[in-house]
């Protein structure tokens, strides 16, 4: 078994020396056989066909060979790592030292492809990056993309990406991310988010990129991602990315009227989606955020400006119209619960920020409505609704005293 592992490791190292490989998959031996049957040409003739299939820069590895392969890769990696980067490392002047670092680099490549969570191998690359000048940022980004192609939630692959970008931003790009690199990163996230739903790490990457963006780019990305979001209304993280942009715009030197325009557009858009896709939590969460923005940034300072149509009342009627128009199926029940919770949010935020508009009448009526609805539609959360209801009432009572 061990001997077999060594031979397989050699083959895999050789296959992966092709830097153009952009996809790896782990497949059952029977699937592997089918792949071989179905293809006339294979990229790598020396590789054991019962373990590997390689064509058009795509690599398939049999799950059955993983344990011996991994064990063998791990021990080769550790012995090379120990000599070159470990405590008792030799000086970097020895002859052939470049070749030995290259060898360690290929081993790290094999190790992270077999186990993307093997952080010590990713970090060995970062070490070598600092010692030699042979490693290119492009190569690091490619390896990260390759790993993300089969393990889109690999935290270490995402972190390696951020590290690579940060180190090159400092040395190569004079503290700015060039537009084309930014777009490449967004393209990657879109591709991964399509295949891997609810991918926290992928969206974290988008939020991380926001720090490098100008207000113009941010407003542009809000537009660009709209169609994606519309097709994935349950992707809370995608809406969080939008929130991240709004918050950044509000702290940047972007004129407030521009942000307000974007906010208004967002508000109309999200309301349309709420009416179209019934009972989606992510949409209602976003709606809460937009109301929060109004309270903190867009509330008119002069009460006279919104006489007749105070914004909180507009929002309450929107929620009411959602409640009235939906059926008694499960989606409808969720819609009613979210809309009622949203009304509670509106009252809560108005009270919290001592919003001037007089809502005492509304408050009494709405609190009663909310209580009725929440208890009947989301009964299993009774303790929460009772708790929150008590808090809002307590806050209102303080006010009347």
């Amino acid at each position, binding site marked *: 078994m061990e001997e077999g592992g060594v031979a397989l490791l050699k083959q895999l190292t050789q296959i992966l020396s092709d830097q153009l490989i952009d996809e790896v998959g782990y497949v059952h031996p029977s699937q592997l056989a089918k792949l071989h049957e179905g293809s006339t040409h294979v990229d790598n003739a020396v590789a054991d066909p019962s373990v590997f299939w390689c064509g058009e820069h795509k690599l398939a590895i049999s799950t059955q060979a993983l344990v011996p392969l991994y064990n063998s890769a791990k021990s080769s990696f550790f012995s090379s790592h120990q000599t070159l980067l470990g405590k008792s490392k030799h000086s970097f002047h020895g002859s052939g030292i470049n070749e030995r670092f290259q060898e360690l680099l290929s081993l790290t490549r094999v190790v992270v492809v077999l186990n993307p969570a093997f952080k010590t191998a990713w970090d060995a690359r970062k070490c070598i990056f600092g010692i030699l000048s042979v490693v290119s940022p492009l190569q690091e980004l490619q390896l990260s993309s390759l790993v993300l192609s089969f393990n889109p939630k690999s935290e270490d692959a995402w972190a390696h990406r*951020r*590290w690579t970008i940060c180190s090159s931003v400092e040395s190569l790009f004079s503290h700015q991310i060039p537009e084309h690199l930014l777009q490449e990163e967004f393209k990657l996230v879109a591709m991964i988010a399509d295949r891997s739903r609810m991918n926290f790490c992928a969206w974290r990457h988008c*939020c991380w990129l926001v720090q490098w963006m100008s207000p113009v780019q941010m407003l542009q990305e809000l537009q660009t991602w709209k169609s994606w979001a519309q097709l994935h209304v349950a992707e809370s993280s995608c809406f969080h990315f939008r929130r991240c942009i709004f918050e950044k715009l509000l702290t940047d030197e972007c004129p407030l009227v521009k942000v307000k325009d974007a906010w208004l557009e967002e508000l109309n858009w999200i309301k349309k989606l709420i009416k179209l896709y019934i009972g989606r939590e992510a949409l209602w969460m976003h709606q809460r955020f937009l109301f929060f923005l109004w309270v903190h940034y867009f509330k008119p300072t002069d009460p006279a400006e919104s006489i007749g149509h105070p914004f909180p009342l507009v929002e309450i009627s929107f929620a009411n119209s959602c409640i009235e128009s939906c059926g008694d199926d499960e989606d409808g029940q969720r819609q009613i619960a979210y809309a009622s919770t949203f009304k509670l949010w509106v009252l809560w935020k108005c009270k919290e920020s001592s919003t001037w508009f007089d809502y005492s009448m509304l408050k009494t009526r709405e609190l009663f409505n909310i209580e009725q609805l929440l208890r009947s539609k989301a009964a299993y959360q009774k303790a929460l609704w009772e708790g*929150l209801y008590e808090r809002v009432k307590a806050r209102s009572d303080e006010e009347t005293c």
Partner: protein
Amino acid sequence: MGELSIAKHVDYIKSLDKKKDLETVLTEHLRMSGAYWGLTSMDMMGHLEEMDKEAIVSWLLRCQHESGGFSGNIDHDPHVLYTLSAVQILALYDELDVINKDKVAAYISQLQQEDGSFAGDEWGEIDTRFSYCAICCLSLLKRLEKINLTKAVEFVAACKNFDGGFGCTPGGESHAGQIFCCVGALAIGGGLHHVDKDLLGWWLCERQVKSGGLNGRPEKLPDVCYSWWVLSSLVMIDRAHWINKDKLKQFILDCQDKEHGGISDRPDDAVDVFHTYFGIAGLSLLEYEGLKPIDPAYALPVDVVDRIFYSCEKKQPSH
């Protein structure tokens, strides 16, 4: 209501070290955390003495590096995640004196950044998870004065979102696991006043879905590990009475493998030590009979935490 199959879970955890399957091989790099999850579960169930303490502690010491930090296994690089796990294991065993505490504290304090945040290791990734690890670990070592705690607390507070939750960095999405780390760091670091308890309690309780289980973010499926992250946070901010405890208890019990032991993320999925620990810890917070109570901030049995913070004061009554 079904019962917790303690005897089966004890057997399951004891069997883990003998396994050689792919799953085990691929998770060797985080064995330190695996050991912490397994041992803490054993302690909560009252069976810690059945584990080979000597072998575990001597292996653990081999994972310490020159820098003072610990790695997830021998030969791997050190990281603050595994440094906390190692210290927690030593706390469980009342063996914190076998390490040079100042050295561990020095490793952690050099990870603190200008803005108060913490890197996980020398490569500089920033995350509030690492803030929690650093603060929790230094508190257990009684070395909190080695860092700028005010700045550390301020950084965590800066990661608060409009919904009352917390993210991994300022502007990061609210996530129940991240919230546990932030609330835990604030609780230990004396910064709980930064939390809007009603608002956060609201968001956390909305994580409960119809089946009784908790998810970690809107629209996600319930998962046993969030029983711990959500519930411990709710306990720390005094809002645990807002959750439907009976339904949650039932959900966790339904995730047991009653035949072979262990707990999975959702009913009928494959078990692992991670979800076994979080399931048992969740039940412990729900005051399940037969389990030791667990401390929501330190993630260690209450008697272990009490021993660290109160017993030496008894020994030295001189101030």
